[in-house]
């Protein structure tokens, strides 16, 4: 079952602009994670935010989590052409280890 819905499904921006992707989920979670997937490849873990955290930073990435709204956002600042990829949120529910993925956002960054 899909836990998350991501918005937008596709995003096209210019290099240097910021990219924001949103994720909504349905059940209580232990943590939420963001992954990146280059075309036809495996997923790479970007960042994990726990349910008791509200914001987390890693380099050009900023993730927020609002458990009252069951939503999260991923902000990529000063985007580069190399950021072109699909981005997925995934949740881990309390007491379980398995990841449940959203449907993903395809990001295209043009030079």
């Amino acid at each position, binding site marked *: 079952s899909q836990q998350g819905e991501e918005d937008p499904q596709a995003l096209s921006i210019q290099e240097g602009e910021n990219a924001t992707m949103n994720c909504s989920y349905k059940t209580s979670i232990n943590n939420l994670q963001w992954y990146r997937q280059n075309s*036809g490849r495996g997923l790479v873990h970007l960042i994990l935010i726990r349910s008791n955290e509200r914001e987390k930073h890693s380099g050009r990435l900023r993730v927020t989590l609002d458990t009252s709204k069951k939503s999260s956002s991923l902000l990529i600042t000063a985007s580069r052409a190399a950021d072109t990829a699909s981005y997925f949120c995934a949740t881990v529910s309390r007491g379980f280890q398995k990841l449940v993925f959203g449907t993903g956002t395809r990001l295209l960054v043009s030079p």
Partner: protein
Amino acid sequence: DVKVTQSSRYLVKRTGEKVFLECVQDMDHENMFWYRQDPGLGLRLIYFSYDVKMKEKGDIPEGYSVSREKKERFSLILESASTNQTSMYLCASSLDYGYTFGSGTRLTVV
């Protein structure tokens, strides 16, 4: 760094064949997972395992089985491949909440 290796990058099989997809991890992780990825449907969990010889069904186990005889190896088996099993298959392992994925196997059933 943890490495998760999937034995084949691309695979073409005939309908009715028995297909084995192999996944090996090198960091002694307890948990291993098999997902399939389809356009518009995202990643869906097929099976997972928390320990050797242990397996749990995910969201879409029909038509699949798994084997975990050794901690480092988790195999996905398509007992009788069908065209609707054409997909990208992704293996992952984790110790706690940090997941590492393999590069994927793109399986085409003709």
